[in-house]
């Protein structure tokens, strides 16, 4: 059935888009760091998973247990020793964004350079869980389904954590107005650092999972940064549920256009949808009203 054959693979593709955007929505929306090195961090995690798999035979899913804490620690250190000073120095949100863009632009080249030295420029690819699974007549790859599953689970968990816990509420308060949050006794610096580190952990989840089915190289980070940005902005900056919905929507639309219209128009469809959403809701699907 054509409809199932569009919706299911579309959701699976969209799950990947959501997965690679979740970390950015926390880092950009909550910690207010427009992290241009986002895609590079993602590719670094992919390289980590690849090395563990090809060197030690460690499954990428097991590698997550190692990659996520390491990524969180690295991101926390990055925030603590580099970004926090900037955040404190800049007066308003606009200045903070510009400063964070400049700094993470530099970080981008550091990460990329390190990967080039370690792995060179060529392509890497390995197969894990590349097993066909037929659901309602539509064949899907298990590794992509796993990515969708993780996107849903992680997205849901982060959403609940942000809306149902005390820390989550504090983090959202910072996202709305850091100065006001400080006035009610929230430790803005510590919690922003936590949110940034957590976002970094999510990047690692994305990188490890997409490495199971995408071919990657050290130069590919920008592709992921761009896609993540589209998803985050479309979903509403800082909104985890928005990123999830926007990612899935993009996946379904791309697949539908590829099957029903022409595969050559998928990129055009992506940007048409992006522009369409922004025209109707300038702050994104789930974004706050402009204040």
């Amino acid at each position, binding site marked *: 059935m054509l409809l199932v054959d569009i919706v299911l*693979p579309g959701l699976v593709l969209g799950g990947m888009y959501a997965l690679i955007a979740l970390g950015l929505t926390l880092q950009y929306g909550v910690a207010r760091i427009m992290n241009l090195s986002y895609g590079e961090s993602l590719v670094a995690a992919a390289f980590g998973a690849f090395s563990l798999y090809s060197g030690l035979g460690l499954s990428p899913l097991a590698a997550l247990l190692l990659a996520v804490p390491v990524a969180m620690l690295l991101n926390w250190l990055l925030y603590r020793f580099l970004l926090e000073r900037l955040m404190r120095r800049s007066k308003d949100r606009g200045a903070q964004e510009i400063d964070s863009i400049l700094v993470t632009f530099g970080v981008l080249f550091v990460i990329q350079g390190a990967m*080039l030295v370690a792995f060179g*420029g060529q392509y890497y690819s390995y*197969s894990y869980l*590349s097993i066909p699974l037929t659901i309602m007549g539509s*064949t899907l790859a298990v590794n992509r389904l796993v990515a969708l599953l993780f996107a849903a689970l992680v997205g849901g968990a982060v959403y609940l954590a942000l809306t149902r816990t005390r820390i989550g509420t504090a983090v959202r308060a910072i996202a709305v107005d850091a100065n006001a949050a400080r006035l009610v006794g929230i430790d803005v610096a510590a919690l922003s650092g936590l949110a940034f580190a957590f976002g970094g952990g999510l990047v690692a989840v994305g990188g490890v999972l997409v490495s199971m*089915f995408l*071919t990657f190289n*050290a130069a590919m980070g920008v592709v992921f940064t761009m896609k993540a940005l589209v998803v985050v902005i479309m979903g509403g900056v800082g909104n985890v549920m928005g990123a999830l919905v926007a990612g899935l929507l993009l996946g379904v639309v791309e697949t539908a256009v590829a099957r029903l219209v022409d595969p*050559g128009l998928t990129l055009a469809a992506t940007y048409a949808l992006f522009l369409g959403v922004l025209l109707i809701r300038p702050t994104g699907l789930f974004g706050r009203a402009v204040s």
Partner: protein
Amino acid sequence: MFLANRRTLLRVTGLMAAATVLGAFASTAEAQEKIRIGYAISKTGPYAGGAGITTLPNYELWVKDVNAAGGIKVGDKKLPIEVVEYDDRSSSEEAVKAIERLANQDKVDFILSPWGTGLNLAVGPTLNRLGYPHLAVTSVTDKAPELAKRWSNATFWLGTSAQISEALADLLGKLKSEGKIGPNIAMVSIADQFGIELSAAGRAAFKKHGFTLAYDKTYPMGTQDLQPLLKDAIAANPDAFIAFSYPPDTIALTEQAQLLKFNPKIFYVGVGTAFPLYKGKFAANSDGVMGIGGWNADSPQLKDYLARHKAATGKEPDRWASSITYASLQVLQQAIEKVGKLDRAAVAAEIRSGTFDTIIGKVKLKDGLLQDIWGVGQWQNGEFYAVAPASLPGARAPVVPKAQWQ
């Protein structure tokens, strides 16, 4: 104080001027001790993947080989190579700027070409104006014969899109006449110059051989899911599946074809099929897959090259343009040695007119183009053998139909 300072300043300036003059002498004296060879290559950006496997390792291997042998013989002296390297960041402007810099500031004796059709066409006019020989190895374009006429310094080594597509169509036509495949072809191609030229040439060539294109679509660069494309291609029930694709798509198409149990008699994918990565990833399933390129894997020179490449870079070369890249450098070296001095115009003329001994055999260019080009290769028992054009020495018989995916 001021006077003393001024005096010191004058003295320092004078010393510096003297040092510069001496330095200039020193460097002209030094220039005869070495051959300075420069290149700008994509170490970052979207072309880094291709440059990192096909071009850069061969530049490094060649420099290492030449220097280990004492250098290039110029007159009665052997001059070792000194390398000046830049990153063109996969950008045409950067590549052109780097070439200008190599010529005007670094004053290198020779410039090696960047990776890829786009960048080679971008730096072509500049290299021509500056008078450097241009070995445009990794460029596939139907404009090559015309460009070679316009740029007397330039040579093209991978054939034209039409040549590659015709080799494939000839092979398929022969298989059809033998009754091994039917007339249905599904073709997909990447929407950039490479894909557009090859698919346009393919369309014409397939038609000439009596094939029907049951499915013919392009897809944009960076497409992360090729399953929708493949499903419609499967629905067309083709005898041959042809993809003019780039490495990430080549890998993804093969993987998805296995998942979807798509077993056409011919499975042909584009750039990346000839990479060691492909064999490494798909192992036994790579057997029978056809792709662009190929080499005469039985040749002792190439076997030796494979071993040296592996020892020097830790990786196997790709089975299409790697060996030709290395051979082009051997041609450059022999041309310099035959001319006997660092005269760029004479070297460029010699490259075009001379005959050279290389790892891919005797090389003699015609009108600035390497003529004997492999169009189609096939993985057979872990090696990517050239199968078309069948008229070239060393061509293997293709295995058709491809065995089912395991």
